[in-house]
């Protein structure tokens, strides 16, 4: 089907986008890559009155790393971020996540920030962002504020953004050397939607894990942190038994929904297996024994 009618606005900067959102009111939405929003409009599942296109705003296009982490602007396309040398160095878990998300032509158009703002609970990029940790920068008519990746995702397609705010960019926190990441999903083909996924990070110091992050996707209404699994990892030496225990803890207590791609019980099992394998890879990359 064709999209319902709407009024198109093009913002030349972040400040202009925020002003437009303020002016146009509740029925205005940001248009980034359009790779989630336009299918929803064509299916008549969404019919916003106004779209504010941010992809022509030069101040939103940047990608760059510094000591604090990797900054990704709201207009940066997924494929550009995925192949960017600084992403591969500073946030390889994000690069892995992007390479699993949809087909290359979709990634040419879609933005990383758009995926995070869309907040689909089974999507790759929100889970990777939460696993590595970071900050969302939001801008509204009243100014800018920062929201932690821990607090950003509130429910199915629901974030901490207020009406009239847009995300201008995200910063993915740097982890010290000695860190390894693991990103694994199970899907029908590499690029199709994950049935379940695990995004993990571990830092190993002198043979002991001193920092760990375990996040699951596709099993709850948000990308789900698993503190019980992290508690088992921290203070332990990397090893098969520890990873199996942590994976068990990650899957314990989750109650994923069933759909045509898999039952809740199947997703729960996937969560355990994917977590164990992702942790094994992460520890290898961190340089710890496994």
């Amino acid at each position, binding site marked *: *089907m*064709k*999209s*319902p*009618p*709407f*009024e*198109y606005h093009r913002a030349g900067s972040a400040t202009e986008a925020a002003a437009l959102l303020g002016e146009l009111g509740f029925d205005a939405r940001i*248009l980034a890559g*359009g*790779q989630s929003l*336009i*299918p929803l409009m*064509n*299916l008549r599942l969404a019919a916003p009155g106004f*779209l504010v*296109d941010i*992809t022509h705003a030069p101040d939103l296009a940047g990608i760059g790393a510094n000591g604090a982490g990797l900054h990704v602007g709201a207009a940066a396309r997924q*494929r550009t971020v995925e192949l960017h040398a600084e992403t591969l160095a500073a946030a390889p878990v994000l690069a892995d996540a992007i390479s699993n998300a949809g*087909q*290359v*032509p*979709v990634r*040419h*158009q879609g933005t990383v920030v758009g995926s995070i703002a869309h907040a689909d609970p089974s999507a790759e990029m929100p889970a990777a962002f939460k696993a590595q940790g970071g900050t969302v920068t939001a801008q509204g008519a009243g100014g800018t504020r920062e929201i932690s990746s821990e607090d950003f995702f509130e429910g199915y397609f629901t974030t901490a953004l207020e009406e009239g705010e847009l995300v201008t960019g995200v910063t993915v926190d740097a982890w010290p050397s000695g860190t390894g990441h693991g990103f694994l999903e199970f899907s029908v*083909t*590499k*690029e199709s939607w994950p049935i379940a996924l695990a995004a993990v990070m571990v830092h190993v110091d002198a043979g002991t894990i001193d920092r760990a992050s375990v996040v699951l996707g596709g099993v709850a209404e948000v990308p789900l942190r698993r503190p019980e699994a992290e508690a088992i990892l921290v203070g332990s030496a990397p090893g098969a038994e520890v990873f199996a225990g942590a994976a068990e803890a990650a899957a314990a207590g989750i109650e994923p929904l069933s759909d045509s791609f898999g039952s809740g019980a199947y997703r729960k099992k996937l969560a355990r297996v994917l977590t164990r394998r992702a942790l094994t890879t992460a520890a290898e990359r961190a340089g710890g024994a496994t």
Partner: protein
Amino acid sequence: MSTHDITVTINGAATSASVESRRSLADFLRHDVGLVGTHIGCEQGACGACTVLIGGRSVRSCIMFAVQADGAEIQTVESLAPGAEMHPLQEAFRRHQGLQCGFCTPGMLLRSLELINDNPNLTAEEAREGISSNMCRCTGYQYIVDAVLDAAAEMRAEEG
């Protein structure tokens, strides 16, 4: 509803038009410009029949509004054979029976062209993974992979 004046380059020719905001790039190309080589299958981004190249990069023209493409350089399947002679990719698709009904073919050709431009020495595995973005309900893909590899070899030889 809003209407917008856009200027795009289509297959090398600058084109100006006035488009409704909700006009998809695919419909703009087919109905307003008359380039009906771009096919529309699902209209939700899933099948790749509507693939065009923008700045040399494959995108789904059914989930992009024409107004978003303002200023862009667009290449459609019509650019492959402007005269009577077919492009080496089209020849290879014909030789290898890389098409049956032909519905997916414009998208397949443009995605394949991008793959070969990115890597003229692509392997069968890379060709297979590359075209996994586009659906074909007829060929079973194997003949398309054969055609892409053969065309790549021919285009390498032509480049000399």
